């Protein structure tokens, strides 16, 4: 049974359509991440699931029950807001009990539930404080506690970590993951941080301009993005997009980089189907799929790589890896490499491209070929 089912969902404000035909379903206990750039409609979709925004057309089902017209309180959901939205005049304990009071749960049971959740989140010492007396991370925890005391069918998160500093964000990310593993609630998690989505989610929904681009496991989204937008959005640094043409050498199809020496970079078996020589393509390579030729990285896995020559313009050490700004066939490309293996600025180097990992896109439709 799917815990959440969204069918042909649309939303317009006046004449402006902000969500177009969204289809999504989540299994019970699943962790779904909604990602996309600012303004793509993530929060709107979440608000519609919560019942805070009306549905223009389509269906939302929670555990098979159609909830389109149900009030938020009848949907059996809990939500954690980006601003935490803790009630400022209430103590942490009152914040957590407010929802249970509204539902007329007996006092004894309330106290028991709060004690259990507070222990789970390690916020027992904070129960008598007001939200203004808490740090950002503590507020975050309390906000999650408030969601958990209700034992909802569905937990919704709207960018819960974006108000925290970088270090705390990573800590809380791990905590959310642990928490999800221990309580096992179906979760929909909105974020614009693709790393958060990759680390937390069992499935990722990538949205752009109100359209659901792809809904799949993190691995599939990363390795087989449906289009150029998804490929560029997921992964950091971004995937490189080089314009190229399909060519042929010795009967095998390959890619010829525009502006280069005309060498054909042969595609692996089975990848060339449907490609015509002379066809324009976008050649997509992630920065980590370039490597030093002597490493033989692809070959050790029994795959093939080809060597291209790159001119190193700039070097950006980040500590764990070094980012090279290079030009390949006159087109800019970002390459990541081991800090110890970094070449000097201005050097011309050979780079092995892992051909099994590259993506080809149609320049007109931007779909993956």
């Amino acid at each position, binding site marked *: 049974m799917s815990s959440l089912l969204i069918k042909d969902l649309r939303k317009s404000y006046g004449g402006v359509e902000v969500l177009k035909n969204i289809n999504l379903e989540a299994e019970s206990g699943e962790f779904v991440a909604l990602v996309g750039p600012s303004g793509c409609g993530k929060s709107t979709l979440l608000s519609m699931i919560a019942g805070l925004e009306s549905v223009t057309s389509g269906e939302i089902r929670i555990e098979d029950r159609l909830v389109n017209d149900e009030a938020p309180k009848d949907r059996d959901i809990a939500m954690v807001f980006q601003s935490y939205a803790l*009630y400022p005049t209430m103590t942490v304990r009152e914040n957590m009990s407010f929802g249970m009071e509204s539902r007329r749960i007996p006092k004894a049971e309330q106290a028991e539930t709060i004690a259990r959740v507070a222990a789970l989140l390690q916020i027992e010492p904070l129960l008598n404080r007001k939200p203004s007396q808490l740090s950002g991370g503590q507020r975050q925890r309390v906000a999650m506690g408030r969601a958990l005391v209700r034992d909802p069918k569905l937990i919704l998160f709207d960018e819960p970590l974006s108000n925290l500093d970088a270090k705390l964000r990573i800590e809380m990310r791990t905590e959310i993951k642990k928490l999800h593993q221990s309580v096992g609630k179906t979760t929909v998690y909105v974020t614009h941080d693709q790393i958060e989505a990759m680390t937390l989610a069992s499935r990722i929904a990538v949205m752009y301009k109100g359209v659901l681009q792809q809904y799949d496991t993190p691995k599939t989204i990363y390795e087989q993005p449906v289009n150029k937008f998804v490929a560029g959005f997921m992964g950091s640094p971004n995937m490189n997009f080089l314009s190229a043409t399909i060519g042929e050498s010795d009967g095998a199809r390959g890619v010829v980089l525009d502006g280069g020496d005309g060498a054909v970079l042969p595609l692996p078996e089975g990848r060339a189907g449907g490609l015509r020589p002379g066809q324009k393509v976008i050649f997509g390579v992630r920065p980590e799929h370039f490597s030093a030729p002597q490493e033989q990285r692809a070959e050790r896995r029994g795959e093939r790589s080809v060597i291209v020559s790159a001119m190193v313009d700039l070097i950006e050490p980040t500590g764990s890896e070094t980012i090279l700004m290079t030009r390949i066939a006159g087109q800019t490309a970002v390459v990541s490499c081991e800090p110890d293996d970094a070449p000097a600025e201005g050097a011309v180097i050979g780079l092995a491209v892992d051909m099994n990992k590259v993506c080809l896109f149609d320049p007109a439709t931007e779909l993956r070929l």
Partner: protein
Amino acid sequence: MAEAAHIEFNPLATGSRRRQLTSKTIIYLCLTGFALMYLLPVVIIFLNTLRPLDAIVREGFIAWPESVTFSHWAEAWGSFCIGGTCEGVSRFYQNSLMMAVPATILSTAIGLVNGYILSKWRFKGANFIFGVVTLGVFLPAQMTLLPWAFVLGNLGLSNTISGLVLIHTIQGLSFTTLFCRNYFINIPDDLIKAARIDGAGFWRIFRRIILPLSPPILIVTVIWQFTGIWNEFLFGTVFTSGANQPITSAIVAFSGSGTGERHYNVEAAAVLMSAIPPLIIYLVGGKYFVRGLTQGAVK
């Protein structure tokens, strides 16, 4: 939202000692001058309440009292004859309280709910309605006299305190709605959303979330309404007479009418007495009044 200690910006704290000293002197001289200008009339009136009538007639208003008596205060409160009754201003005092207290409570309460709806439960046309309501702030009271005469006449509330309560409640709504709406608009919508998901309805959110955040604006509206209604004169004079007048109209009636001699000292005491309730309210809540008017956010 870190709780940093709030440090007032002090532009006079920099520069040479000499500059600091001269600028401070100038500022305090100006302030003292203005304070004297405002306070002097009050002092003169107060001194007159202590002087016997013949001394006032002989020496004029502005003079230091030779002999001091508080008897005029008692007379003004309990036994002076105004408009045929000899009960002093006490009964009109009562009238004013009976008018100002309920009208303040009612207009503030309705203003809170109005503001809550217009900021947090917005509906189509909410902005238009808000615009129309605030138009009332700029409408001169004289323009509403005729309609009110018609309404009070039809409701049988002419020359009653209840009639004045009705007028002041409704006339005050423009202000209270404006104040409350502009205050509530700064309360984050996420709080309301969270409460709705938590199962709270319209009134529960109002009671448990909005009201606990409201003391600053509550103080502002209560002070504003109470002083405004207490000091109001036009409606009281037009719609009530005799024993039903609020104190403002009564004082004018007893100083303006009558052919006999004027009891300046008793009148002065009555005037000062009538100024006491708004003064008390302001002294108690004035600090919060200024703060509430300037502070927007709840953060």
